[in-house]
């Protein structure tokens, strides 16, 4: 079941790549997608305890979060622009390292959280050990923002709904 859905996904990507729909190239696409599925399908969806249906539900819930993330990326770029173009000797820059605990269980949720922290204004995830994140923050205002756990709850609502 997982293999079939991976095959369909890869074939969809092939169609975007290819742009030619004659029989010869479509056959090549089918062969290629099947070949990649054969040799490396275990790389997608490492944790297969949940069914395909649950996975699809998770994917459906994802876009809203991604849109919110896009807005955050815009904010972080404006933040960088403002800092970079501020005159004088960069009054606002006050770097510090912070350790934060997270309640997320799954690896994928942690990955999502770490990348989201990297993309939101003023913070970068340096390291992740167990459930502890080491974060570098660029100014005092953003250090305060790290303690806020709204992002974590958003991710938990997507990937770990049954736990909460």
């Amino acid at each position, binding site marked *: 079941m997982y293999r079939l859905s991976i095959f369909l996904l890869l074939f969809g990507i092939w169609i975007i790549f290819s742009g030619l729909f004659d029989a010869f190239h479509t056959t090549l696409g089918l062969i290629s997608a099947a070949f990649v599925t054969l040799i490396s399908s275990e790389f997608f969806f490492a944790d297969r305890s949940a069914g395909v249906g649950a996975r699809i539900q998770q994917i459906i819930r994802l876009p809203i979060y991604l849109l919110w993330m896009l807005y955050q990326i815009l904010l972080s770029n404006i933040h960088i622009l403002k800092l970079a173009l501020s005159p004088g000797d960069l009054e606002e820059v006050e*770097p510090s390292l912070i350790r934060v605990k997270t309640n997320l269980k799954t690896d994928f949720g942690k990955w999502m959280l770490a*990348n989201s922290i990297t993309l939101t204004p003023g913070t970068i995830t340096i390291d992740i050990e167990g459930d502890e994140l080491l974060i570098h923050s660029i100014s005092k205002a953003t250090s305060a923002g790290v303690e806020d756990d709204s992002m974590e709850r958003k991710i938990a609502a997507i990937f770990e709904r049954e736990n909460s």
Partner: protein
Amino acid sequence: MIVDTICIVLVSLGLLFFVGGAVGVIRFPDFYTRMHAAGKGDTMSVFLVLVGLAVYQLGDFSLGNALVAGKILFITVFIMWASPTSTHALIRAGLEEGQKVWTRDDKKEESEK
């Protein structure tokens, strides 16, 4: 005509953010803060420029152009997906290598010398 305007606006905004990233890479005081400029200044600007180009490509609508626009969007997704990871990898390498975190005090010491 509308398509052209949208494209010009998006690409120009993207270039503006590129300026932010480039200036940040030069001006910021230590490795970690420069990493902030390098890692974040790029994502949104790449997104804006490439989406602008994809919109322009869609302006002259046909199946082939739509697929090319899809490919451009795929590059965007790829970069926004890979960028946080490479940022993380590089900054972690910097930490392992023993880069110092810059503070206000360093600045004062420098000026006293």
